């Protein structure tokens, strides 16, 4: 198939960006979206034009490195990461707009590449269980009921790609935050730090410039891992409880 691509090009963090139009021909429906960009980049290189910078690593939907706004949708029309989006989703003659994640806390590094360091700093604020290596008790010393294990697992599926932020009109990272608070809060091991964690992580979230949540649900809709919106309810629940405890 033949397609028209309008791709965001921006030389560096402080440079002015613009959408540049490219035509691609003979695209196979079996290609992934990123392989289609690879083909375009090879051609640009042959023509002496600099290839388009974009992030990707595992290309099997789990590392969270890739992420593009495709015609206004985070990761495009499928419920999957950009690397798992295949060209059979599109039809011949389509015009596709490709942009980086749009959110102030994710500044553009170059072209389609953004800096998601804010997510790491939110985890640093409290997204962990404090246990030094060697200090762990026997694994079977605490039991986890199935419903807690399942919910913890579901929340732990977050890959930190940032689609939730990109999809949210307020650039809120509440789904990311809620997923971690839920994952650790559902497990017995996560209880001792539960109330301090939610407050510290939320403070860092706000400090990074992410917006507030209005329960629009765009985040959960865009999430390639299907993190449910109710992790934000858990976040709010834990936050209220933490405040009641004077945190």
């Amino acid at each position: 198939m033949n397609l028209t691509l309008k791709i965001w090009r921006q030389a560096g963090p402080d440079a002015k960006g613009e959408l540049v139009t490219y035509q691609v021909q003979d695209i196979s429906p079996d290609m992934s979206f990123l392989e289609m960009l690879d083909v375009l980049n090879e051609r640009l290189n042959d023509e002496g034009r600099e290839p388009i910078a974009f992030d990707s690593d595992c290309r099997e939907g789990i590392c969270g490195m890739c992420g593009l706004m495709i015609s206004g949708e985070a990761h495009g029309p499928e419920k999957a990461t950009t690397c798992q989006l295949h060209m059979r989703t599109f039809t011949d003659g389509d015009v596709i707009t490709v942009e980086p994640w749009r959110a102030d806390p994710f500044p553009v590094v170059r072209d389609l590449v953004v800096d998601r360091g804010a997510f790491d700093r939110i985890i640093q604020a409290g997204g962990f269980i404090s246990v030094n290596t060697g200090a762990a008790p026997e694994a079977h010393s605490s039991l986890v009921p199935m419903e807690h294990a399942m919910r913890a697992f579901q929340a732990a599926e977050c890959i930190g790609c940032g689609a939730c932020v990109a999809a949210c009109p307020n650039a809120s990272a509440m789904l990311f935050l809620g997923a971690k608070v839920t994952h650790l809060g559902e497990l017995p091991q996560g209880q001792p730090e539960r109330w301090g964690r939610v407050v510290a992580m939320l403070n860092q979230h706000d400090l990074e410039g992410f917006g507030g949540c209005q329960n629009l649900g765009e985040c959960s809709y865009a999430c390639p891992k299907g993190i449910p919106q109710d992790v934000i309810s858990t976040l709010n629940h834990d936050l209220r409880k933490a405040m009641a405890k004077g945190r």
Partner: protein
Amino acid sequence: MTDLIDGLYSLGDPIQDTKAPAGPIDKKWTQRKFEAKLVNPTNRRKLTVIIVGTGLAGASAGATLGEAGYRVKSFCFQDSPRRAHSIAAQGGINAAKNYKEDGDSTYRLFYDTVKGGDYRARETNVYRLAEVSASIIDQCVAQGVPFAREYGGLLDNRSFGGVQVSRTFYARGQTGQQLLIGAYQALERQIAAGTVEMFSRHEMLELVVVDGKARGIIARDLVTGEIQTHYADAVVLASGGYGNVFYLSTNAMGSNVTATWRAHRKGAYFGNPCYTQIHPTCIPVAGEHQSKLTLMSESLRNDGRIWVPKKVEDCEKNPNDIPEEDRDYYLERIYPAFGNLVPRDIASRQAKNVCDEGRGVGPVVGDKRRGVYLDFSEAFGRIGKEAVAAKYDNLFEMYKRITGDDPYEVPMRIYPAVHYTMGGLWVDYDLQSTIPGLFVTGEANFSDHGANRLGASALMQGLADGYFVLPNTIRDYLAAGPFPDIDESTPEVRQARQQVADRVHHFLTVQGTRSVDSYHKELGHIMWEHCGMERTAEGLRTGIDKIRELRADFWRNVRVLGENEQLNQSLEKAGRVADFLELGELICIDALHRRESCGGHFRAESQTEDGEALRHDDEYAYVAAWEFTGTGAEGQIGAPVLHKEDLVYEFIELKQRSYK
């Protein structure tokens, strides 16, 4: 007749001592931990350790050394340490917990790993791996890793290829992700505590060796292009494997050999580079545009049955129309004891054999159909679609997304693909390379898997090395530090920086005609054709000539656009492919010199009557540790020197492997 290997390498002194303490095998690790010198807690903060890579082996080591109070500098080329390719591991992690009371033990895990590795691994290291395995599960559970559980709240286990007990802990098909996030969170905790300094989007491009010791690295900031020198008292490489030398593999796009190859060029021996694992259950190649191959977890072999049509003329038919009696469940037929759960190397080779016979399925790639069926219809009948979905739904979904076929309706098609590299930098019992102060952990070293790795053992090794082994052995070395200050006026530092700057300058000014990717693809074709699932002397010799030719052309004719002082992904790739082009030759030389078949290394000249790998223990029961020679000029490598480390089997009897 002249030997094809003549002149390609020379023989050096054997390696006599691997530094494992004497005594019974189950006391060695305790003994070593006791003998290793301690570092006073107040002195630890004066000691700097650089760790390159943030996968399981790197993040766990970084967190643990940080907790102990050392100053850690951690590097990764990705935008966050959480993205390292350990994250993509699906199936599980082995541990000798014997929660199933099915006869498992430390000794059995040790035995299975040595046997699975086709008796080409070092006993002492493997025993220790099995010994610390149980602690890994404890540590991960305490961190909040959400392993699969039973209704009673206890941890669940499943079985994996090459063994007959259930010792694999798992988190659906995302075990690597969950373990890595656990290690990542522990690392982030130390970053917040100030013990670990993180350098994301930084790539190590050279090792700094001063007075014979590893003292730092030269790294490039991938965003600004700045060439930086980082000093340390010891350097740990946890930079993963080199499967991407084949271009198409299950590795991530960025996985590369540069950190270990630059260390090899500076004197670290490279162990068993030809031992590469071709994983049997991957989605087949679809076309020339393909950038990577996707693994379908080996755990699928627990419930899926592998078959091809008995008759060549059935290969084009809809598989659902082929009656039971016309299907050849070839693994169950050839290996009745292990069936579909034979080790990876065997499952891969048999898939190749049936496709070579013309009984492959799916599209024709090259001259043959390259695919076999992995069929769940028996499991649907036995436990129901829902139960199958509970175990594998995310894998089924991934398969459908990539191929467009629904495995609930038609059997999956799979074919082997390059997945893991057992070879890596040679290390002693302490995980120290032949350069003092340079330690190597995880897939980047060669030590534990011999010629074939068993499923669910990579995660075990990465975390064993990082959480429990390295932190105990590195202190013995660090106890002699801090080492004398060095700076940019130190000749070795200046030279290393210059080397990096020259290389970058060369790539940006050569202004050739071919893209980096086109060279990488061509190298991959050469490696797959001449050094893939079946290797011959003639094929390898041809491969070496082709690689040399391609490498010379690369240095003359590559085209890298843009500048250094910006994010420049072509420039990053150019450096990685340059190193793959040197490594590829060493892999072929190693494969050519080893005139036996073992594990993932199958030499057509060395097979039993029924086509199984035939080892020659009298000649080849050794680790091949290769020393780099040459002037150090880029793109030029001399004939390497082979140092043999004899593998002494004190505890396990050497046998021809049988899974029948």
